[in-house]
């Protein structure tokens, strides 16, 4: 019985270590990806995995992206930030997504297979995102 209790305590200790390590890793990831990331100057739009268009963040535009499945995502660039204003997808996750402007940030519409990513024109068109 005493052994069992000790075993349980060890398990709970391991739980806490595991959770702490996960949270620490995530916080480091968030700091690296979101806080210390510089602003980008360009928005890249892909549709169904293929490049759809490239737009500058410095110009205010409204672009209707007609998707492969006949849907629609309206991309708006305003004040140097890009967001999806309206969309035909059922969940509306892309519309709810806050505006993106930092290098590598993206808005993804899974149902319509549309990905909007902020890039920096100077360092090539494919930033190192997962590093």
């Amino acid at each position: 019985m005493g052994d069992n209790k000790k075993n349980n305590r060890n398990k709970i200790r391991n739980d806490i270590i595991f959770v702490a390590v996960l949270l620490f890793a995530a916080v480091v990831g968030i700091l690296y990806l979101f806080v210390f990331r510089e602003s980008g100057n360009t928005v890249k739009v892909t549709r169904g995995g293929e490049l759809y268009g490239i737009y500058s963040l410095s110009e205010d535009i409204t672009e209707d992206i007609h998707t492969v499945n006949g849907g629609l995502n309206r991309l708006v660039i305003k004040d140097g930030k890009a967001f999806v204003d309206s969309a035909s997808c059922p969940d509306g996750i892309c519309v709810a997504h806050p505006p993106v402007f930092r290098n590598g940030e993206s808005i993804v519409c899974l149902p319509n297979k549309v990905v909007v990513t902020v890039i920096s024109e100077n360092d090539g068109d494919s930033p190192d995102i997962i590093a």
Partner: protein
Amino acid sequence: MKNKAKNVAFLGLCTALALILAYVELLLQPLFPTIPGIKMGLPNIIIIFLLYKRGAVPAIWVSFLRMVLVSILFGNVMAFSYSLAGGFLSMLVMIVLKRLNLMSEVGVSVAGGVCHNIGQILMAMLLLETVELGYYMVILTVTGTIAGVLVGLCGSMLIKHTKKSSKYC
């Protein structure tokens, strides 16, 4: 024979419970409007419970049936492929971690929750042919860990309390 019928009824009940928890989760979704794709993983309470009470095979079955039924009732084919990938990876990791016996139900549940996110994101990356989604992973790790702790606590309470009234399980 009688035992088998009892077993079927019990697992059916668990599937129904997991299903209703998935529905409750769906209703609670508007509480977190700013974080896309976030879920609490409430059905995992039942999966954890089954994993510890009945072993891996019933847990896998209930988990699979739950995903099929949820997709038919509230989702679509795309959502099904995501949840299948997430569910498979999460199940695998939870079974292995339970065998290793290093952590309690809570740690196993956290690992399951985070792996569910990893599986879904990997599947979405594959289907969309994009790596940008890797971004969500860090946020989903935080939320998945917190949700996993809560789900694990619920699961372990359920396991503890059903020990006393072991008539049905």
